[in-house]
């Protein structure tokens, strides 16, 4: 069994109109090498599902997004994602805006093959007003409480970036927080992981094996992508690249800002990308953010 693929192989599987989930959280452990491959492809009309970081802005800027299902889009230290904001304010973006926990509930419902999971989050807010497809349901028990029925967020494809993987699809996420990647993997028809390191077969001690958060049977393909989360953080290996994120953010103020950004950072090989960002050594030494 060998699930090793190239980013181009993986992105070649995508079709127009698919619903695609991205793991990670804001500017943290986003599968950016895959995102750049999508940006170089012809695929379009995507429904993007994410705890959004720069991948959301970039896909919006490149005109790939038909609909965004999200709880937020932010780069943390730069709170407002510039191209998300631009698309949103232009009235171009069809959105399903959800509470962060409700979003997780949608992934979990899909992961458990349920049509919905009940929740209170979202009731009595405009999350209901602006998402007319969200319905409420009365508890069938004596309490009769009315709850929001969060529909399953079924994904065609999920992309997750991990620290270590093997050719079989076993994965380790060794940063301080695994976020919700296990739910993305389980909510998707197919999940592709990109990994900092890929080995033939993981052979681990018990302590290390606990960093595995979802089983390889959920993994359709493995892409070797060293520093593949850049410019987002990939703890404990490297932090986010604030210099890059700031330049990306500033580019949105110019008319051809996205074109210039894409020319420099998207329309190039992986080797050129690293070179243009100070080289692998610089990126691998980016300090972890202090919270």
């Amino acid at each position: 069994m060998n699930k090793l693929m190239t980013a181009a192989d993986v992105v070649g599987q995508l079709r127009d109109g698919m619903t695609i989930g991205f793991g990670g959280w804001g500017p943290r452990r986003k599968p950016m090498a895959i995102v750049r491959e999508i940006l170089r492809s012809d695929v379009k009309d995507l429904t993007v599902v994410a705890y959004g970081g720069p991948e959301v802005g970039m896909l919006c800027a490149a005109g790939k997004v038909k609909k965004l299902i999200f709880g937020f889009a932010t780069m943390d230290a730069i709170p407002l994602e510039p191209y998300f904001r631009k698309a949103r304010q232009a009235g171009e973006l069809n959105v399903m805006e959800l509470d962060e926990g409700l979003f997780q509930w949608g992934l979990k419902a899909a992961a458990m093959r349920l049509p919905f999971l009940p929740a209170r989050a979202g009731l009595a807010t405009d999350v209901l007003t602006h998402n007319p497809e969200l319905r409420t349901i009365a508890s069938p028990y004596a309490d009769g409480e009315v709850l929001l029925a969060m529909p399953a967020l079924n994904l065609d494809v999920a992309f997750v970036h991990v620290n270590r993987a093997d050719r079989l699809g076993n994965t380790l996420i060794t940063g301080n927080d695994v976020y919700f990647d296990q739910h993305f993997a389980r909510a998707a028809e197919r999940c592709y992981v990109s990994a900092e390191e890929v080995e033939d077969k993981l052979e681990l001690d018990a302590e290390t094996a606990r960093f595995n958060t979802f089983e390889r049977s959920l993994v359709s393909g493995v892409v070797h992508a060293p520093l593949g989360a850049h410019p987002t953080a990939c703890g404990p290996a490297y932090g986010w690249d604030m210099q890059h994120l700031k330049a990306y953010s500033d580019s949105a103020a110019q008319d051809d800002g996205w074109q210039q950004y894409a020319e420099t950072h998207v329309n190039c090989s992986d080797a050129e990308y690293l070179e243009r960002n100070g080289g692998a050594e610089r990126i691998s030494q980016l300090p972890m953010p202090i919270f």
Partner: protein
Amino acid sequence: MSKPEFSLAELMIVAASEAWRNNGEWLASGLGIIPRLGASLAKVSHSPELLMTDSEAFLVEEPVPVGPRGDYQPKYAGYMPFERIFDCVWHGRRHAMVGPTQIDRWAQTNLSVVGDYHKPKVAMLGVRGLPGNSINHRNSFFVPNHNSRVFVAGEVDMVSGVGFKPERWGPGMRRDLMSIGVAVTDLCVMDWNGPDNAPRVVSLHPGVDFELVQERTGFPLLKVDNLGETPHPTAEQLAAIARLDPHNLRSKQLNGNPAGIRTAEELRA
């Protein structure tokens, strides 16, 4: 002993810390430097029973000082990644202090957009955790610039966090799990404990009068009986704040880092 001098930021940190008094073993989450220092001050002074994180993924019994840590090593006591935060939120033993873009008379909040939802004038972060936080546990607000663009005249543009507006609640929905603490602003401390949860001014910062607060608020305010001044920080509190904020990040949180005691002229400038 002479009375200590203090900044407005320090006064607000002390006022914020009071929000977490007598909460019990709740998770105290202060979002932003001043609320986080308020929560940290509460834990190191009057409410050591509070739970707190390092603002990333771990529980700590000793609040982690803000900013670059130098030699300081956080002392972890447990684990609290995002997924467990949601578990904790929905279970209800949490009190967050957040900084919404808009707040209305019903304590409803907005962090999503200003203007029309489909083509907003300003798109912010998105609703984030406000819907789930607000319906499940207590929330307080931090407002660094008290004005009627924050405290809006009508309803907030996109209701992200729930409040006390009856029309927003359908039959059968549980409203008893929500709870509003206080709003700590650069002018005053407010709560929503008036008749029918009407907003009230609880204390005024030094030099501020009720009329000024009302002028800069988009909705009518009540005042508590014996409306007094927000307590000044004590020397002990100031020393604790300095330990929790060794790089003086608090001095960069409010425009011009105003003094804690302002004259009426300064306030109306």
